[in-house]
């Protein structure tokens, strides 16, 4: 089984420096793309590979790039790495950045070349101190080796790269909010259209890609679209960084072919549930995805199959709920997070999320009322897709709506017994 993303990552030794990375085949895709391919050919190859965005939305990466106007009416374009990983339960980009920072930088150079961007940013969340240190060093090495700066590899192509560290706000991971943050504003999302590919950072065409997405690019350029599709037997191409946290024997991250089953992930890789705990449910792809439960154990973890099961693959990092953790408390914790992190820009999210949180807190404190279930249900509709400015509130409703569906008796118990049965 090939693991291109993590092949050079070894937590027992420091990340590779540029020379060692080159010795292992690093930066070959930059040579290949810049010297022997046109930007359109790079975009076409990535589109043909069917690489879907790994930040959670799962949109075809090459297609996203293809929306950037290439007729040179705007000489300034931007390529941005979204490294603001802050979705609770999601910890995959940290591994990639700390383990092999050059891999993403290489992916960024090729991606920027594809859209002919001359300025690139890494928007890194503030908490990733080690990644920041490694990235700064790796960027310096890439400049010194001629992979960044003016006239890259004698091609006439120029690219600058800057590292921006955030100051903490979940909404910064939203593509357009991230642009506002980079412009020195409150990170509220922007109306779409115009899409960032047309009018993004400082009003210029901009592509924002997730860290894991960018890390796939060098391998696709080096090995081709068919190789990438062949990495997975399922309907989605490539490998995926899957993770598991919660009360399992071996929480962690694994690079596996797209489309492995939830059973394999939990029972084989995560080593099954800890002694004395039973599996009750799991959010398959971070805090803003719907619960999957026991009957879904054989669901394939790819974008289509997880959607068919009523959830989203999201970031592919799973949070497990066990039978000794209160599902209402679990959902309350999530809604507390989303209420805190709402940017406040639109009313349903700003007002609805704190209301939701208060209802759940009251239930946990034994003050839940029968009508609260209808109120919660109402919120899942009114804060759902199409009713809010961005996807934060609809994402917040996903774990809640599925908890109301699968764990209704636990909510009823709180109301009827006037206490949290787990405390």
């Amino acid at each position: 089984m090939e693991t291109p993303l993590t092949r050079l990552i070894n937590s027992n030794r420091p990340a590779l420096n540029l020379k060692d990375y080159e010795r292992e085949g690093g930066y070959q895709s930059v040579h290949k793309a810049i010297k022997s391919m046109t930007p359109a050919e790079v975009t076409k190859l990535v589109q043909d590979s069917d690489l879907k965005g790994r930040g959670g939305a799962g949109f075809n990466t090459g297609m996203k790039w293809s929306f950037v106007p290439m007729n040179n009416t705007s000489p300034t374009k931007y390529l941005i790495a979204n490294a603001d990983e802050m979705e609770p339960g999601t910890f995959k980009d940290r591994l990639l950045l700390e383990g092999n920072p050059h891999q993403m930088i290489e992916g960024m150079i090729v991606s920027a070349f594809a859209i002919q961007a001359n300025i690139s940013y890494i928007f890194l969340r503030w908490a990733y101190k080690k990644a920041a240190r490694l990235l700064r060093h790796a960027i310096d090495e890439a400049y010194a080796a001629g992979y960044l700066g003016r006239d890259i590899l004698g091609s006439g192509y120029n690219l600058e790269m800057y590292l921006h560290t955030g100051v903490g706000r979940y909404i910064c991971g939203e593509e357009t909010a991230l642009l506002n943050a980079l412009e020195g504003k409150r990170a509220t999302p922007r109306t779409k259209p115009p899409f960032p590919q047309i009018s993004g950072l400082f009003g210029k065409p901009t592509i924002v890609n997730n860290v894991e997405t960018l890390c796939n690019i060098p391998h696709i350029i080096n090995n081709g679209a068919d190789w990438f599709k062949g990495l997975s037997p399922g309907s989605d191409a490539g490998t995926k960084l899957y993770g598991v946290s919660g009360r399992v024997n071996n929480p962690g991250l694994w690079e596996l072919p797209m489309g492995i089953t939830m059973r394999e992930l939990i029972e084989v890789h995560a080593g099954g549930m800890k002694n004395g705990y039973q599996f009750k449910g799991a959010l398959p792809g971070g805090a803003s995805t719907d619960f999957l439960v026991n009957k879904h154990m054989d669901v394939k973890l790819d974008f289509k199959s997880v959607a068919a099961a009523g959830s989203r693959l999201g970031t592919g990092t799973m949070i497990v709920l066990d039978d000794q953790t209160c599902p209402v408390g679990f959902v309350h914790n999530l809604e507390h997070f989303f209420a805190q992190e709402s940017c406040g820009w639109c009313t349903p999210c700003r007002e609805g999320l704190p209301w939701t949180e208060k209802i759940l807190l009251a239930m946990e404190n034994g003050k839940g009322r029968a009508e609260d279930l209808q109120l919660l249900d109402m919120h899942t509709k009114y804060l759902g897709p199409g009713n809010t400015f961005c996807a934060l509130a609809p994402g917040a409703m996903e774990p809640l709506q599925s908890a109301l569906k699968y764990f209704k008796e636990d909510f009823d118990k709180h109301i009827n017994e006037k206490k949290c049965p787990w405390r």
Partner: protein
Amino acid sequence: MKINVMSPILLTAEEKEEIDVEIGLVPYRKAACIEALKIVQHHRGWISDESLHTIAGYLEMSPEELDSVATFYNLVFRKPVGRNVILLCDSISCYVMGYEKIYEQLKARLHISFGETTTDGRFTLLPNACLGTCDHAPACMIHHELYRDLTADQLDEILDAYK
């Protein structure tokens, strides 16, 4: 909100130099405002009204406009903080793995709750959304140092290292 300016203060030469680098990277001055807040906070520990007023003037924006940005972000401190900021992750994986026990221990040991600073100015305790180390929950960060797989009985030794 009214910005309360007691007396004007100046940016130090070092702060100015660092902010000027950031201004050079963006198309207009105020686009560097988050970086400027970070720089001044790095040197002074927090962003006082006086600091805010001075930075705003330097970037040619109103103090109110800059404050609307400063108060948006979790890690721009508009109140003084202790010498060591403890950021305890209270997100879902840490919730499942028992961050509440860690919080209880911290409260008992430091006699402060979330949002408070010890009377000797040694620690400020803040809740923090996901630190991105969910496979090693529960976790916290103290003065930029990450602690993972935390147990309540490790805390005394960890805290002792911070003066």
